[in-house]
């Protein structure tokens, strides 16, 4: 058996989490460097995954596979494998975490005047260990090709996330210390209960799937490969009703995680109350498991039901796009604004997935990557700003560009990425989603373009209110970005520009996986009405 690269990629942060937690209470800096070190090791492993992944014609759909029997009686296996979409998502996760650690470097330090109470009091260690733990679980859910294995990590990541949201605030909310703690606690529990509710429904569906396979195949299985083989051989067919119920069970859980309107209300609370790096962790990394799983499980396992549900899902995603953007416009708290913007963007991702065209699927996958990086850039700079002033309220800022031009400039670039300006990554993915949707559903494609205008509105209004105009009293001495902060933001911006100008490396990896997914759902791209002759098409060669 070859080196289990995927396991190693997930294990690196897990070991890192343990190592970080084990650092003695007084050695906070050592803990931070330990965490950063392990997150960088994870990047190296993820890079190895990327390099080993074969995108050539005829390459296997799932590669770097690992397979071990786990619970034989229930057909649960430890099966890992990645297709291009999984590689892209693992890459995104691995790349983002070091930046989140760098951005949150001082977020979990004891406040001034506080002294560590004894050997067990070490929030700094805990904060970074939890982030690494989440990373490990997210990577496992991207790599798992056994449905039960996926389910375990899909659910288990709620625990560290719960403590990250509830335990570490940005100390910038309204009200006194106790009031803020209550807000945080509310947000954490709301996050947990929403996602648990989804998880329970999904559990029922997971069990239902096992029952169905058990009945037809003689022994139940959770293995994607086994199910695909059985389906191809005609040994396994779901009845229409069964398939629809199972689809709904999975989709419900993923729609909460994604989140899709009207199941979105936990996100603004969770992102608003947590520290900026944790907010990014939620929306850029953890939530992506939801949209990723729609592609892999909903479409892959239940093609008929996916087609059946498409009209409803498209309507929900259009509502998300417009509704999220309008709500973003109405926010007074800048972190909640970014959260609602994310809801709008998740609408685009789901729209691309259910448009069921090559452009829609490639666009949605690329969108997940770009949205992760763009939101990280915007949210982390917002976090830097908030930590300086101690307030999340937009009205407390004004004229920042005068005193902190670099901060304002990077914030603007993050904002421009959020509004999908050409030249930055998100434009490519948003346009692909729009084209992919339009080619099958004209009206949906046109309605979605409203999001283009609204995004410009909420980003530029936010920028205008916080960064331009006369300097707000109390901000005259606002320091500009420090070296550490610049070191976090500058590479993200470089990445956004790279993906905007040359997204080919990512699309090359994603394209074969998209073809497989489309053939899963028996869809082919709509063809153009007019055939353009080859000679004309090649005129620019």
């Amino acid at each position, binding site marked *: 058996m070859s080196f289990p690269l995927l396991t190693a990629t997930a294990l690196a942060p897990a070991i890192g989490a343990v190592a970080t937690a084990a650092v003695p209470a007084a050695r906070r800096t050592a803990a931070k460097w330990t965490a950063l070190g392990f997150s960088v090791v994870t990047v190296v492993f993820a890079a190895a995954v990327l390099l080993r992944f074969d995108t050539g014609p005829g390459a296997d759909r799932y590669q770097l596979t690992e397979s071990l029997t786990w619970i034989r009686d229930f057909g649960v296996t430890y099966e890992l494998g990645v297709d291009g979409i999984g590689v892209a998502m693992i890459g995104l996760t691995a790349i983002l975490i070091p930046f989140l650690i760098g951005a949150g470097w001082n977020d979990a330090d004891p406040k001034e005047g506080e002294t560590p109470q004894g050997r067990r009091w070490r929030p700094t260690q805990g904060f970074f260990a939890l982030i690494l733990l989440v990373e490990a679980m997210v990577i496992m859910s991207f790599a798992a090709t056994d449905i039960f294995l996926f389910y375990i990590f899909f659910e288990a990541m709620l625990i560290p996330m719960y403590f990250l949201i509830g335990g570490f605030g940005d100390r910038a909310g309204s009200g006194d210390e106790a009031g803020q703690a209550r807000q945080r606690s509310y947000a954490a*529990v709301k996050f947990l209960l929403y996602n648990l509710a989804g998880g329970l429904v999904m559990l029922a569906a997971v069990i239902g799937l096992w029952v169905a396979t058990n009945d037809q195949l003689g022994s139940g299985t959770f293995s994607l490969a086994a199910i695909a083989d059985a389906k191809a051989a005609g040994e396994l067919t779901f009845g229409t009703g069964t398939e629809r119920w199972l689809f709904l069970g999975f989709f419900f859980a993923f729609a909460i995680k994604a989140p899709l309107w009207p199941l979105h209300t936990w996100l603004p609370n969770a992102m608003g109350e947590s520290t900026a790096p944790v907010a990014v962790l939620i929306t850029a990394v953890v939530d992506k498991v939801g949209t990723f799983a729609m592609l892999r499980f909903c479409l892959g396992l239940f093609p008929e039901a996916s087609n059946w549900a498409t009209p409803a899902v498209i309507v929900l995603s259009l509502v998300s796009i417009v509704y999220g953007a309008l709500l973003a416009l109405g926010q007074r708290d800048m972190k909640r604004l970014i959260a609602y913007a994310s809801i709008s963007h998740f609408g685009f991702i789901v729209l691309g997935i259910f448009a069921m065209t090559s452009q829609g699927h490639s666009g949605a996958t690329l969108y997940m990557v770009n949205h992760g990086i763009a939101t990280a850039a915007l949210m982390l700079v917002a976090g830097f700003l908030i930590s300086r002033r101690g307030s999340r309220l937009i009205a407390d800022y004004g004229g920042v560009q005068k005193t902190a031009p670099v901060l304002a400039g990077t914030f603007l670039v993050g904002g421009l990425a959020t509004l999908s300006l050409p030249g930055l990554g998100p434009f490519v993915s948003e346009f692909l989603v729009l084209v992919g949707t339009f080619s099958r559903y004209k009206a949906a494609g046109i309605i979605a373009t409203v999001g283009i205008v609204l995004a410009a509105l909420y980003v530029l209004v936010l920028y205008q209110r916080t960064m331009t105009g006369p300097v707000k009293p109390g901000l005259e001495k606002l320091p500009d970005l420090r070296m550490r902060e610049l070191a976090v933001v500058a590479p993200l911006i470089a990445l956004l520009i790279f993906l905007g100008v040359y997204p080919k490396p990512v699309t090359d990896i994603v*394209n074969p996986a*998209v073809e497989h997914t489309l053939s899963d759902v028996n869809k082919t791209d709509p063809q153009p009405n007019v055939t353009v002759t080859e000679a004309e098409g090649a005129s620019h060669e």
Partner: protein
Amino acid sequence: MESLIGLLVAAPLLGALVLLTGGRRLDRAGHWLGTALAATSFVLAVVLFFDLLGRADGDRTLHQHLFSWVPVAGFQADIAFQLDQLSMTFVLLITGVGSLIHLYSVGYMEHDPRRRRFFGYLNLFLAAMLLLVLADNYLLLYAGWEGVGLASYLLIGFWQDRPRAATAAKKAFIVNRVGDIGLSIAIMLMFTTFGTFAFGPVLSSAAETGEGTLTAIGLMLLLAACGKSAQVPLQSWLGDAMEGPTPVSALIHAATMVTAGVYLVVRSGAIFNAAPDAQTVVIVVGAVTLVFGAIVGCAKDDIKKALAGSTMSQIGYMMLAAGLGPIGYAFAIMHLVTHGFFKAGLFLGAGSVMHGMNDEVDMRKYGGLRKYMPVTFITFGLAYLAIIGFPYLSGFFSKDEIIYAGFAKGGTQGWILGSVMLLGAALTAYYMTRIMLLTFFGEKRWQPDAHGHEPHPHESPATMTIPMIVLAIGSVGAGFAFNLNESFAHWLEPVTGLAHGDSPVGHGTVSLAATAVMVIGVGAAYLQYGRRPAPVVAPAGSFVTRAARRDLLQDDFNHAAFVTPGTYLTRGLVYVDHKLVDGVVNGLAAAFGGLSGRLRRVQNGYARSYAVSMFGGAAVLIAVTLLMRAV
């Protein structure tokens, strides 16, 4: 030769990168670096131009394919350039006027502590604008299209600490985004219709598809053009954009970017030619805007806003010409180029006046400046004569050709179009003469400002006057040169086509009529502003004057129709989201699982125990189910 095309874009892009990330070290020489890179582009453009001239008529299209941009099944977008006669014309205008305005800005922005950044933005603009006109497909054009929008946003709001500048910048971007919806939908329609959005295949197979689709594509392209070119109904941002530094108004909001809409329509000529309904709408938009802008231009006391009204109006002429089809395309572009010269010259002149007048923009506080600023006066005066269509100067040739083409439309339509354009010409003569008289003639009317500083008008430094002189030469001679043997129209003919319609009114008659209405306009302005001293405070004016001063109530309309309802909508939705969506979902959950009860107890400090117990419950459930199945 082809490989030079990319360098055209790369030079200013490099400048933008270096200047915007280079830091304070570059403060001392950054502006010269930016200017040198703009000039480099211009030199490259001239080299390419002579290369094209050396080729046969039908062989003047160069392609450069750099790399595949977004390769996804069935969707091919390339970073690839196409240089033909149409884009060459634009490239020369953009880099030529662009270089001059870089030079001018060296002097104009001398005392601004953020001059380096200003030049970075200017370079960024050049790169994006060149990308727009050199792209060989609509998606890359879109990238340039939004890129110039970004540069425009950054430069209008360059003095960000002024709230009005920040608001104007945002407004320009948002209104343009509304137009951009049109461009996105047009590209999507092309993709579903032709399977591609590269110029070559789309334009050559346009005729093979149904008129309905082409009309839809045409109208969507027009929507985009309306945003970028400030045409009714997306015109409202241009006047406010004058908050930006004056060189920006000259380069972006007069000579180049705002004319991109005309480029788009002319470039897509093959689509419009086969979609007469879309063409009619283009004509109507152009006609309405040319009158709208002229009326606004007559009422403004702010010299830059008066000129902005004029820009709208002149682009209205171009748009109208582009709507006429092959008979008008070449002349739309010809007017675009001559307008680039004289309008940039007028703005630079206005900037020179402001430079000497403590940044005062109210023309009622100028007066008699010809004695203090002779170079500015003469160059501005020549550009003035060019724009009003004084015989044998640039505007005379380009505008008359458009008016002639309008009459040639034939029938009642032809008469209407011709008359509207003649009316516009009279208004142009009127408002331009008004500007001229208020600024350079009469008695001095300036007063000490709020701090007690009396302006001391003086001529501007050579870095500013040299560009003004060069543009004045262009304003005087370009039209004549272009018209020799119809050289300009024949140069463009392989790309745009050329037609000579039958006009019920001859060329000579049109010229005569245009000159006559010009004299009427000049005379009317002279009677009002030349014979008696202009009041320092504007008279109340009639209802029409007051409406025109408020840009014919465009902002009032937009506020009532969009901003106010939108604000109420978002406020309402915030409430709904909090009370209703959150409440209903929580309530539904409560009905099933007591979620809301648990959420309420959170407030009492039971949070962790409940969460943990619930998770524990899930774990137990899993275990039990599995066990049950195993048995």
